[in-house]
């Protein structure tokens, strides 16, 4: 209160005019004084006293002791006084439940007041008083207010149901308020509709499984009508609710989109973003060749750009969402690069987001502009921003190949500035550029080496060491450089130590004669003097490799590295899809699925507390998109027996530059070369050099005995190398060429392409699994979702060997038709889940129906005739098969190959009529009549079947078979 009294002193007389006078009570007996005033007879004095009480409340002062006195003022016809008392009640009723009950009578009376404002006020306030005893009295007035003649009261009552639900959910259900609320969705007043939707949405949040908002085309229509007329806030509620609906088909989807697009021109940015969410989601359903699809794409860009001219806080939220949109549909904003250019007085959180989006939008077309900007940013004051800008230049080089050279020269310019943190960042990104474009820019190494001394950050040091090791043969004094790092080995961070170890081993393999001492030194430092298990284990495996099989060591350590991917920080596609559905929400700001952090229901504690909300870094927005720490040291030292196995796993896990990845061509045969190759060169060294020998001899003391023998190592390496070989692809009749079912982008590097075939009555799914990731894939398994014809794998997926990077395996999976059946849309859709050691991936593919045409599908003539007559004409479908240059016999033969049997042939006026039958695996018969006019390449096909929905697919099979 001191500040308040001071404030008033300063103001002197002027304070009489303002509310600050309410703070000017003497400290002593303040409550007592107020009590007296509250009980005064004069209305005016009473009101002033209540104002004083409220003023104290706003600054967090406890005035609950005045409860009975304030409540006494409640019965008044002065609306302002009434409101003030209500304000007080809401704040303190909870702490004085017994006293609060005194107010009930007045509330109930007010709920009957002829003035709708007072009725609404009473029911609203009552809902805010979280006292059970009062809640009981609330039900009757609330029920009345929900059906009040005045929409203002109804809309207030709708919110009140949500309040009541928060206090006592069971009560709301028992009293049937939920149904009344649902009825309000059809209310004539749009504001009432909006509030009912808002209340239902909030209630539904705490009942994730309840079907409260049962969206059907009728309710959707009502919501869309209300959308045009309600307030901006109501529009947000309605749009968010619409986003949960799944339209039945693309036509409905388009009509909703059409009615939502005007919201993109709303002045309220939250309305705009909610509309964007609905559109982004429903757009998925529109066919891409539809004109409207293109129109919609064009309409989305301007409102998003406009959001960026708003206040920085709005910009931030908008940018986080644009980041998602750009990843999902880059075409929307591809021409808008300039709006993401950074202004120097943007807040840092806006700058960093803009930068991120700039890189995502960078392409060959705009790279020159982007680079010029990035270079400009790299000279700014803010260190975080400068670092990110430098990094962005590197990302551009990797993303847009044509720009790589310019990026490198820009980075070199920046290194020349000698600004310490700029140099360090530049070196880190140049390392990645080397990885992406090997043997292209090594001319800059000399410049990099000049800056060796100024590197004090682990990441930059590690990057530099990697470069030195990788290009040891081109750097004359590589050994000196690495040796200089070795001096302070134990003070370095793990990252640098690991990198140094690998770099020196590389150096040794490249220049064995001069560097034995160095390698021995680092191996002993790593294995004997270090207590970091990661480092020690990596040291051992190198040691072992070098001592038993230098050729293998060379193959492993100096193996060609898999390419690094263009965009390392893309959000994983399934998560991205989920986040797109949550545009505009907190989930979209944090780029995390809502399940990760939203509280199930209010009042209930977090079931899963997010790790990032610890008090220490609570305020820091989590850096999304980066994977977890890659070098977490294992807590337990592996037991001796499986040490080697663990070593291998450890080394394969983190995808750092140093991890050797084994080429599929590596065979066990390499072991036979033991005597040759490097060995001859090293022969004298390993055997003869006493120092090396001693070093190796000393090692086993710390090494498990089981690993001492060469066979064990051989076996271990064998496991590691046994990667080659694929399953041969069985040959068969014509099968459609393989198409890509699961692109590598969506499956962490696993690409699956495939096709279906029916060979000798057996249905087979032929797949090629291609590993485009950097690590080995194992443990493949496959499963189908229920589908229209009960297709299911007849056996496990036979991928026996691990799939190493860049390797492709062909597998044939026999299928049965005895699986569970569920009608799919389209009918021949098959949803597949493939699992490997990395994750589970989902895709869907469509199989030709001819897969299901059985061999005994030839119908008796008589039966055919009878059946044809029996099937109602409505079930007949007619198709044109165009451009077939076969005569009827050839066509008939061709079709027979796919189990479409010709039963009879008739020739009428130069027109051949073929009558054909097909039987599906599930026993459905399909009858067809094909008319072929001599000289006319277009056939007419009539299909009759008891299940008319298959006709379309049968026709497709005809076309496929006849055309190939």
């Amino acid at each position, binding site marked *: 209160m001191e500040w308040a009294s001071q404030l008033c002193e300063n103001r002197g007389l002027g304070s009489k005019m*303002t*509310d*600050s006078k309410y*703070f000017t009570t003497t400290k002593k007996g303040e409550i007592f004084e107020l009590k007296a005033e509250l009980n005064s007879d004069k209305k005016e004095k009473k*009101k002033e006293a209540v104002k004083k009480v*409220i003023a104290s409340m*706003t600054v967090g002062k406890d005035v609950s002791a005045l409860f009975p006195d304030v409540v006494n003022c409640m019965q008044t016809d002065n*609306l*302002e006084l009434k*409101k*003030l008392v209500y304000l007080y009640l809401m704040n303190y009723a909870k702490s004085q439940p017994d006293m609060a009950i005194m107010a009930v009578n007045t509330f109930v009376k007010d709920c009957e007041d002829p*003035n709708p*404002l007072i009725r609404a006020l009473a029911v609203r306030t009552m*809902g805010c008083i979280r006292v059970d005893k009062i809640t009981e009295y609330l039900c009757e007035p609330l029920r009345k207010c929900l059906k009040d003649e005045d*929409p*203002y009261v109804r809309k*207030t009552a709708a919110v009140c149901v949500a309040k009541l639900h928060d206090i006592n959910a069971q009560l709301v259900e028992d009293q049937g308020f939920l149904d009344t609320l649902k009825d309000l969705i059809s209310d004539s007043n749009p*504001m009432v509709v909006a509030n009912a939707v*808002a209340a239902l949405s*909030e209630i539904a949040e705490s009942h994730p499984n309840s079907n409260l908002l049962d969206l059907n085309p009728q309710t959707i229509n009502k919501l869309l009508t209300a959308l045009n007329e309600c*307030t901006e806030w109501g529009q*947000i509620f309605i749009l*968010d609710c619409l986003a949960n609906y799944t339209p039945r088909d693309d036509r409905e989807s388009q009509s909703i989109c059409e009615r939502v697009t*005007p919201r993109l*021109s*709303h*002045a*309220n940015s*939250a309305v705009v*973003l*909610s509309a964007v969410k609905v559109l982004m989601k429903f757009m998925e359903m529109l066919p891409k060749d539809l004109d409207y699809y293109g129109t919609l794409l064009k309409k989305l860009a*301007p409102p998003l*750009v*406009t959001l960026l*001219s708003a206040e*920085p*806080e709005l910009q*931030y939220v908008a940018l986080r969402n644009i980041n998602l949109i750009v990843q999902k549909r880059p075409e929307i904003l591809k021409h*808008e690069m*300039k709006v993401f*250019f950074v*202004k*120097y*007085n943007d*807040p*840092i*959180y806006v700058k960093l987001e803009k930068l991120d989006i700039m890189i995502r939008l960078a392409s060959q077309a705009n790279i020159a*502009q982007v680079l010029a900007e990035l270079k400009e940013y790299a*000279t700014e*004051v803010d260190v975080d921003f400068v670092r990110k800008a430098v990094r962005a230049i590197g990302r551009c080089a990797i993303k847009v190949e044509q720009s790589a050279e310019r990026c490198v020269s820009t980075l070199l310019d920046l290194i020349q500035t000698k600004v310490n943190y700029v140099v360090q960042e530049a070196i880190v990104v140049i390392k990645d550029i080397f990885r992406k474009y090997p043997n292209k820019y090594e001319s800059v190494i000399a410049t990099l080496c000049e800056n060796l001394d100024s590197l004090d950050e682990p990441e930059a040091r590690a990057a530099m060491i990697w470069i030195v090791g990788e290009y040891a043969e081109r750097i004359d004094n590589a050994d000196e450089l690495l040796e200089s790092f070795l001096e302070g080995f134990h003070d370095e961070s793990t990252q640098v130590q690991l990198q140094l170890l690998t770099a020196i081993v590389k150096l040794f393999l490249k220049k064995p004669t001069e560097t034995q001492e160095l390698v021995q030194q680092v191996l002993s430092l790593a294995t004997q003097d270090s207590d970091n298990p990661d480092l020690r284990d990596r040291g051992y495996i190198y040691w072992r490799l070098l001592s038993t099989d230098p050729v293998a060591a060379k193959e492993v350590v100096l193996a060609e590295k898999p390419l690094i991917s263009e965009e390392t920080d893309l959000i994983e596609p399934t998560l991205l899809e989920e986040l797109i559905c949550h545009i*505009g*929400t*907190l*989930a979209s700001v944090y780029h995390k699925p809502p399940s990760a952090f*939203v*509280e199930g229901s209010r009042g209930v504690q977090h079931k899963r507390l997010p790790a990032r*909300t610890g*008090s220490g870094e*609570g305020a820091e*927005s989590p850096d999304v998109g980066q994977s977890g720490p890659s070098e977490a040291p294992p807590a337990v030292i592996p037991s001796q027996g499986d040490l080697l196995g663990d070593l291998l796993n450890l080394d394969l896990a983190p995808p750092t530059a140093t991890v050797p990845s084994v080429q599929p061509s590596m065979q066990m045969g390499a072991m036979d070369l033991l005597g040759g190759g490097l060995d001859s060169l090293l022969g004298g060294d390993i055997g003869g050099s006493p120092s090396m020998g001693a070093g190796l001899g000393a090692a086993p003391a710390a090494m498990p005995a089981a690993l001492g023998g060469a066979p064990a190592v051989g076996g271990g390496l064998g496991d590691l190398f046994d990667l080659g070989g694929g399953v041969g692809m069985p040959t068969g009749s014509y099968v459609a060429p393989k198409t890509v079912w699961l692109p590598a982008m969506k499956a962490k590097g696993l690409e699956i392409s495939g096709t279906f075939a029916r060979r000798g009555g057996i249905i087979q799914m032929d797949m090629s699994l291609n590993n485009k990731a950097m690590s080995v894939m194992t443990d493949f398994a496959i499963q189908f979702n229920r589908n229209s014809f009960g297709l299911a794998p007849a056996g496990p997926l036979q991928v026996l060997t691990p799939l190493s990077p860049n390797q492709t395996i062909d597998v044939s999976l026999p299928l049965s038709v005895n699986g569970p059946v569920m009608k799919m849309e389209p009918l021949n859709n098959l949803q597949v889940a493939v699992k490997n050691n990395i994750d589970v991936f989902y895709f869907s593919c469509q199989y030709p129906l001819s897969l299901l045409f059985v061999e005994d599908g030839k119908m008796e003539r008589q039966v055919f005739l009878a059946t044809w007559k029996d099937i109602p004409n409505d079930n007949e479908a007619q198709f044109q098969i165009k451009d077939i240059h076969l005569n009827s016999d050839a066509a008939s033969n061709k079709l027979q190959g796919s189990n479409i049997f010709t039963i009879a042939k008739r020739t009428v006026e130069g027109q051949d009529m073929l009558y054909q039958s097909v039987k599906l695996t599930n026993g459905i018969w399909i009858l067809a009549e094909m008319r072929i006019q001599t000289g006319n390449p277009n056939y007419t096909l009539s299909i009759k079947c008891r299940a008319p929905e298959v006709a379309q697919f049968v026709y497709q099979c005809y076309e496929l078979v006849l055309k190939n």
Partner: protein
Amino acid sequence: MIHSLFLVNASGDIFLEKHWKSVVSRSVCDYFFEALERATEPENVPPVIPTPHHYLINVLRHRIYFVAVIQSEVPPLFVIEFLHRVVDTFQDYFGVCTEAAIKDNVVVVYELLEEMLDNGFPLATESNILKELIKPPTILRTVVNTITGSTNVGEQLPTGQLSVVPWRRTGVKYTNNEAYFDVVEEIDAIIDKSGSTITAEIQGVIDACVKLTGMPDLTLSFMNPRLLDDVSFHPCVRFKRWEAERILSFIPPDGNFRLLSYHVSSQNLVAIPVYVKHNISFREGSSQGRFELTLGPKQTMGKAVESVLVSSQLPRGVLNANLNASQGTYTFDPVTKLLSWDVGKINPQKLPSLKGTMSLQAGASKPDENPTINIQFKIQQLAISGLKVNRLDMYGEKYKPFKGIKYMTKAGKFQVRT
């Protein structure tokens, strides 16, 4: 929905709290204070801050942080927009939105906040409706109230609240019927060292002050509506009519409101009304730097460039600036290193310039960063995009109103890199 609101002043004190649901302890703001401490500049506090049980969404306006507490998934933009509405309302009611004004009117503030949200759901945020519910404090009214014992609180349900035109109250009466429109355009631009435009865009608004009796139905048409391809409308504008005919048709709210805002993107050619010639340089080894700046008009369609204010954040190594301004006055703050030059009006015959030297710390190396120059200016009677109102018509009422259109161009974030 929105749980609570805390107002925090520049020195980090909570001076007002309001809870719409159960009371949230003010200790939740500790997370905000931590973020505040970490931020280098007051405006660098991240807008969304997670805490174990709540999320804090804050905006900084008029050196006050408005910190909203939310507990369940709520669209952050919804919260931010609402906070903006709170700020606007305070400004509307008290003239300014400062800590002092809020404290002076604490009871009105509390009543307003209560009226704006119910259980976290927005209730009445339209200034017209709020003013009917809670009368803005004026000295006269305070005096009258004290004498007569009447109140600040409206006793009747606001008429506009539930009609199809919720933004307008019925029974509006004026003796002088007038409708004024201000077309205000702000240019945001980045100009590079050599003077070429890197990006330039225009944020335009049409603000209206409409005092018309009854229920007037207005139409506003433009000479060149083609310019407006990216617009945001006040809810009163009939969207369909705009889509079909490019005419703004609306029943206006009573009083001041923003009819529409528009955006002319960087893909269109945006005229740049001023140019800057500059030479800010430091030499290695010298403790002095040169500073030369000349301003001139360009593409102003013959209109005068006024209220020009140039500011620049000089490098940290600069100790002082000894400059000579050909017109206006300049100041240099040696602590913040902010140079600002109040130029006034640009006379095309005698271009304003600011020249002189900057002294650096002796022995310090040459600063790495290049200062950016920020320019503010105003041009009256010009909408730089070329937007022109064609005519304004009124239907539905008989009288003839006064009509007026004013144009103005201003610099938004107008930056010149050196």
